[in-house]
């Protein structure tokens, strides 16, 4: 076991993958000489050289597409996009090529590309650097969407993502990079299932990514009031672990979904729909959710806090579902 930050965990995962397979390389804006805009790739250029740690021009669409082409060509690119807001400049390549080429080619070609990007608010970076768009990507058949919420998942998801023959998008909530935990050195985790992060009996709190910490804090606060909350970390946003969702709801009969995306057309909405379809008769109360407010994320600290899910909002929503 080694104590490490989430940032170091991602870096170790990249290093491990590059040491294990010479086809693996990293490319993106400022990943080399700058060390990554979140310092994830610091030191990797010195270790692996500029052929495998590639600084790119500010051409998100071209270098994401080049990652797709390189994957088609038999190597294993890790493409880093600075933030999910910038990923919109590569959306054409992700949606129209990465997600479709296997299908359009009748299964002849696969696109084993991994695309990592930062997501989420909370750093006073305002409306072009703070959004949570992973729910949009989770709409697209043909790609896998991962949201590592723990240091262990940050360390362990990249390996299996690179082994996946299909495109994998990894959303790293930028507030998590300084989180610290003990992690096994060679950890690999599965990228198919959600994980129960806290067992409980009275209510299920379903979340992912940057909201997991807030949700666990809310569970602590509820415990202080004698309420036993179960916390499900989805981990994989596409394909959703529907069995885990239905299982926790069947157990507690009440549920709040916490999603940093906007409420309308959100991943939270999809999860609610799955619960309605699959577990309606087990419910003892209407479902509820805590999402970001329907506003571009503002700069001012108090306004940004008001816009994003918070521990207090989660507690209030849970109490309401419990009729308290």
């Amino acid at each position, binding site marked *: 076991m080694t104590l490490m930050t989430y940032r170091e965990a991602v870096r170790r995962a990249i290093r491990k993958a590059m040491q294990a397979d010479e086809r693996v390389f990293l490319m993106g804006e400022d990943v080399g000489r700058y060390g990554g805009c979140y310092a994830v790739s610091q030191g990797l250029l010195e270790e692996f050289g500029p052929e495998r740690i590639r600084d790119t021009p500010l051409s998100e669409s071209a270098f994401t597409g080049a990652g797709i*082409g390189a994957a088609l060509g038999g190597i294993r690119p890790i493409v880093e996009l600075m933030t999910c807001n910038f990923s919109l400049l590569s959306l054409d390549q992700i949606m129209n090529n990465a997600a479709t080429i296997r299908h*359009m080619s*009748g299964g002849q070609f696969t696109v084993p590309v991994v695309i990592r990007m930062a997501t989420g608010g909370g750093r006073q970076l305002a409306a072009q650097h703070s959004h949570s768009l992973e729910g949009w990507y989770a709409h697209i058949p043909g790609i896998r969407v991962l949201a590592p919420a723990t240091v262990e998942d940050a360390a362990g998801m990249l390996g299996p993502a690179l082994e996946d023959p299909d495109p994998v998008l990894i959303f790293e909530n930028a507030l998590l990079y300084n989180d610290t935990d003990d992690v096994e050195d060679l950890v690999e985790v599965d990228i198919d299932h959600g994980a129960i992060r806290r067992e409980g009996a009275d209510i299920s709190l379903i979340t992912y990514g940057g909201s997991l910490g807030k949700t666990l804090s809310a569970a602590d606060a509820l415990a202080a009031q004698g309420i036993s909350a179960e916390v499900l970390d989805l981990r994989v946003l596409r394909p959703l672990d529907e069995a885990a969702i239905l299982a926790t709801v069947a157990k507690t009969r009440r549920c709040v979904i916490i999603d940093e995306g906007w409420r309308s057309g959100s991943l939270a909405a999809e999860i609610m729909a799955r619960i309605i379809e699959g577990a309606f008769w087990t419910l003892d109360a209407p479902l509820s959710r805590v999402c970001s407010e329907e506003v571009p994320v503002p700069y001012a600290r108090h306004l940004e806090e008001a816009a994003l899910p918070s521990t207090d909002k989660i507690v209030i929503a849970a109490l309401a579902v419990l009729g308290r």
Partner: protein
Amino acid sequence: MSDPAIKVRLTRKHCRTLLHQMLRVRRFEEKCAELYTQEKIRGFLHLYIGEEAVATGVMQALGPEDAVVATYREHGHALLKGVSAEAIMAEMYGKQEGCSRGRGGSMHLFDAETRFYGGNAIVAGGLPIAVGLALADKLSGRKRVTACFFGEGAAAEGEFHESLNLAALWRLPVLFVCENNLYAMGTALDLSESETDIAAKAACYRMGAKTVDGMDVVAVEVAARRAVASLHETGAPQFLECRTYRFRAHSMYDPQLYRAKEEVEQWKERGPIRRFQEWALASGELHPEDVQEIEEEVAREVAEAVAFAEAGTFEPAEHLLQHVGAERRT
């Protein structure tokens, strides 16, 4: 009809090859248009008729190990790269024997065996893919070329500029082939570009960029061979702008309000097949019997393709969700 310094020897055999390849594309597509009116082929159908010299000429410079990325007007490129007429026609019929199992249709022909990477229907969307394929070759130490075909309309897209810059910056073995047919669907080049010289745009990225008469198959072949030779020598990308013209509608629903009939007729006078065939006959390189033999062979190939497609089968609808992602452990 070509630069006397060319390195292409116009032997009778080679003349036959060039005419044969252009006619394969022409007759195949004429049949497609006919089948479209019979509703055997549906969706969009973008014909390459008039532009055959471009893909035919360029393909002479490529080997089986080289990759091709093309656009939605790619039946000819697929045929010439070696995808069978049967598999292409079956694809257009939506049959599972098609080269994309009926999942792609006319705009998305794919074939792993011949390294044919589509069939991309987003204008300029294939350029980054070509850059990536070339990057994979470079990082793997393989000496191969990726040829990327696109129309002049692509030059208006950011992906065109981003991709050219990336390929030149990283010195990647991409042969960019711009098929400049003067119209992006219905918008003329001079209505959409402040600088209409596409090769000049490419030259800005410090890559070898040439313009060639895309109605002259020999000129295209020469230019392509030179570009590929230079590419192998330097490892750096090359750009070829082929000035050509589409004789038919953009797709099948196009009254062609944006151009004069006289203009189309003038270009047809310079038609690549007519022009090459007339020259080859006049110069004695080919005899009328050669042309007849080629026509007969092509007609056979097209008829066999249609028979194959007709006899093909539709994939059971229960298979709908296949080919979206790998079957995974759960």
